[in-house]
């Protein structure tokens, strides 16, 4: 993982801790949103809105649909911030 992705991961971790009362240590790249972190589809909508704000990336629900793990979230955000 390069520094850019590390930075994104840090930001995602902060957002998740803030929104879902999770422990920072739980938020590792391989953690699955639904199974491991108990984040359901309704939560995902709120997460999406929050990430859009905090990262200034134009994230759409369609792009977020395929996301399963924390790594996926970081990858989507990294890809979009390159395009931006």
């Amino acid at each position, binding site marked *: 993982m390069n520094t850019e992705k590390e930075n994104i991961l840090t930001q995602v971790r902060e957002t998740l801790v*803030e*929104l*879902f*009362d999770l422990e920072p240590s739980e938020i590792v790249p391989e953690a699955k949103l639904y199974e491991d972190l108990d*984040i*359901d589809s*309704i*939560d995902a909508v*709120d*997460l999406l809105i*929050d990430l859009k704000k905090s990262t200034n990336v134009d994230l759409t629900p369609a792009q977020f649909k395929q996301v399963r793990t924390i790594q996926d979230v970081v990858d989507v955000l990294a890809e979009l911030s390159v395009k931006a």
Partner: protein
Amino acid sequence: MQLTRLRKAWQISTAAICYFLFGLGALIVGIFFRLLSPLPFIPSARRQRMIRWSVHKGCLTFIRIMRFFGLIRYTFDVDSMKQARPGHIVIANHPSLIDVVLLLAVNEQMCCFVKSAVWESIFTGAVVRQAGYIPNNAEQVLPMAAAKLEAGENILIFPEGTRTKEDNVIRFKRGAANMAVAVNAAIMPVLIECKPRALKKGDKWYDIPPGGPEFKLTSKNLITLEDCIDTSLPRPKQYRQLTSYLESYYERQLIAVSDTNPLLKNKN
């Protein structure tokens, strides 16, 4: 021995009659309103009210027939629910197969969620669609429910999602809380007691304890969100707080009722 077998046979046949009548009733109501549907002079809101009223009366008739045959006993203490301001979410614990029937029997106009088996069924499909119920597998479940709550409908949801397990431990899913937070709706908690436990998940529909289980429905005071959670928190935290608040609310209530009846508590 002979008598027990006779009683069992009587129970199975009367239960079969009841469930048959239930299916037949749903089918007739469904067909009746489907035939009415091309008629332009009944506005759809009015039609929905008529169907829900028919469902209510049908459920009331069903539980009366079951009681007549000695398959169930029941008492209702639900004045607070009938007087509560509209646009609330009715929640209840879910011990048995017929909980929804009991709740529809005491509410003349109530919306509920319907699983796809019921939505697709030839017996119940037409009724539940025309009654404006919400299919629980729809993509837009939350916005649909929110619109109905805002229009002043009351929606029933069993936060456990499925019937309570043998161990009687209450575990809530977050759906009810999601809905309540989305529209800042108040919550009407209903306690369903079923003694002894019967018609659980996995039980056969005809496997009914002698004399029938005793159901008691009790509605409590309306809960508003401000009473129990910090509504300034991010919404995902509100969902979680509300869910665990309601879970412990039910745990307390269920312990309270089992304490007042030590005999049954020991038996269970």
